[in-house]
């Protein structure tokens, strides 16, 4: 009896992620969703610029590598020319909430029928730990060495809250992957975000509060605790928008 196996939608390429990084869990959840819905063969994924830039090597579906922040625009092009296919983007906080904010907001307000997996770990990981749009007030990073000073660097962007004020999007939920219960909820949300697309419901974004032990300067287990202690109080988990549920 098989108790545990690698999802079919993941290739055999070893992940390049740092030890303790939660990208691995999130990749797995996305791949499980593709497997369970039987859509891997008609899915096209869009990779970001950031730590997940090489996500195209890890998913077995067709993949496109987008310019920094442009994944929702690329996904829009893909979906408009192939409405029967399933299109998802996988983006980090710098990509989605800083350089790609315009693309994100407008894809949302158009209710593009795409799925976005938004990984928020409050830091630029790939470039070595700079302040992200979602870095917490006071958070020490390479470019906020004295802690994020909100009087000069401004406040973190709460993406789920902000997007849920728009009339366009179908579904916005924030989840986390720092413990078993949260991972299970994250899986449910990701599954729903893909199901919505298949059912033609529209723009579905799952914000995944994630960790970066390397650039946070913590052990992996401490980083998971830090999510509970610091990230989730600032970024409360939950469903921010679910138009269909409201209508039902």
């Amino acid at each position, binding site marked *: 009896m098989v108790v545990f196996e690698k999802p079919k939608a993941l*290739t055999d390429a070893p992940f390049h992620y740092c030890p303790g990084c939660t990208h691995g869990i999130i990749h797995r959840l996305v791949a499980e969703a593709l497997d369970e819905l039987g859509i*891997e*063969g*008609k*899915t*096209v994924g*869009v990779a970001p610029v950031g730590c997940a*830039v*090489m996500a*195209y*090597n890890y*998913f*077995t*579906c*067709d*993949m*496109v*590598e*987008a*310019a920094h922040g*442009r994944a929702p*625009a*690329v*996904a*829009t*092009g*893909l979906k*408009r*020319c*192939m409405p029967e*296919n399933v299109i998802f983007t996988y983006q980090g906080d710098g990509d989605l909430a800083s350089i790609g904010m*315009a*693309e994100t*907001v*407008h894809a949302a307000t158009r209710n593009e029928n795409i799925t976005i997996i938004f990984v928020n770990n409050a830091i630029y990981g790939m470039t070595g730990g700079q302040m992200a749009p979602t870095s917490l007030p006071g958070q020490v990073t390479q470019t906020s060495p004295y802690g994020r000073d909100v009087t000069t660097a401004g406040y973190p962007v709460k993406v789920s809250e902000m997007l849920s004020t728009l009339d366009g999007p179908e579904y916005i939920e924030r989840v986390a992957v720092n413990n078993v219960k949260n991972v299970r909820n994250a899986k449910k949300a990701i599954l729903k975000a893909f199901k919505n697309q298949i059912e033609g419901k529209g723009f579905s974004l799952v914000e995944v509060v994630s960790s970066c032990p390397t650039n946070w300067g913590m052990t992996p287990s401490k980083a998971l605790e830090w999510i509970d202690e610091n990230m989730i109080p600032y970024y409360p988990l939950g469903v921010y928008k679910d138009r269909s549920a409201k209508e039902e």
Partner: protein
Amino acid sequence: MAEKVLMKGNEAIAEAAIKAGCRHYFGYPITPQTEIAAYMAKRMPKIGGTFLQAESEVAAINMVYGVAGAGFRVMTSSSSPGVSLKQEGISYIAGADLPALIVNVQRGGPGLGGIQPSQSDYFQATKGGGHGDYHLIVLAPASVQEMADLTIKAFDLADQYRVPAMLLADGTMGQMMEPVELPDLPPAEIEKPWAVRGTKGERKHNIINSLYLDPELLEKTNFERFEKYKVIEEKEAMYESFMMEDAEYCVVAFGIAARVSKNAVVAARKKGIKVGLIRPITLWPFPKKVMAEAAEQCKAFLSVELSMGQMIEDIKLHTGCKKPVELCCRTGGMIPAPEQVLGSIEKLAKENQ
């Protein structure tokens, strides 16, 4: 044959693109090319195509990147400042070897510049424009008919070579009305086994990408791409030769500048000056061979441009600086009158007996 209809240059581009099988258009409003978007907004929904007014030029070109990756014919159009914004996406499209059409109906620059016609994006169009080692195929129409014909040609070349193509027009060409004949074309059938349309579980995944972290691999990819460019340079250069048979002097001009120059050449001939015109139709690849031949035949060259002189550098390069090359230009949205060009031809002839 299809019947002739009176159309604006911008509309001719749009209708020709549809005839060529383009069903996906992404753009952002900017003068003087907005008629293209307006035309597409009207037509695309009626033929099952996509018209989308993007949130920015940057988004529009990345939507193009997505559709091009899926292997469908796709285009965007803009004017100079907007085309600057698209350069990031154009570089990615070139780096991922995708076919697409970018239309630049040029206006005066730099900066916000003006809204009157210009040719001052020649460098940007022909020398790369965005970051990295790459070229676009650049086509320069000089009539409304060519706006249509070269649009179709651009889609064909882009597909054939997997290279993005640019139609480099200007505000005059865009706004001008002339009779145009639009051919009914059979659907272009080009296999695109590299496209991302889902694996259907039947093949390994396709990846549309321009990232190569291994420098040796990136170098190899660039070398291979430039081998392809060599073939394009060898096979695809286009130009028009006018009164060049016995010419002692050669005017070189493209687009609207070539139309003005033609009148000046005819006027100069009447005054007994043996002058001809070479009109590059492809700006990249530049018609090198004919330029090298003209360098043997002619005593001097005159580059007529709506810029401070950009193509003149290619003329000097490809004539090997064997003969003097002078510039006759207006810029900032101004167009030279035939008399100004005639004056420059007379001066050129006098100084290079």
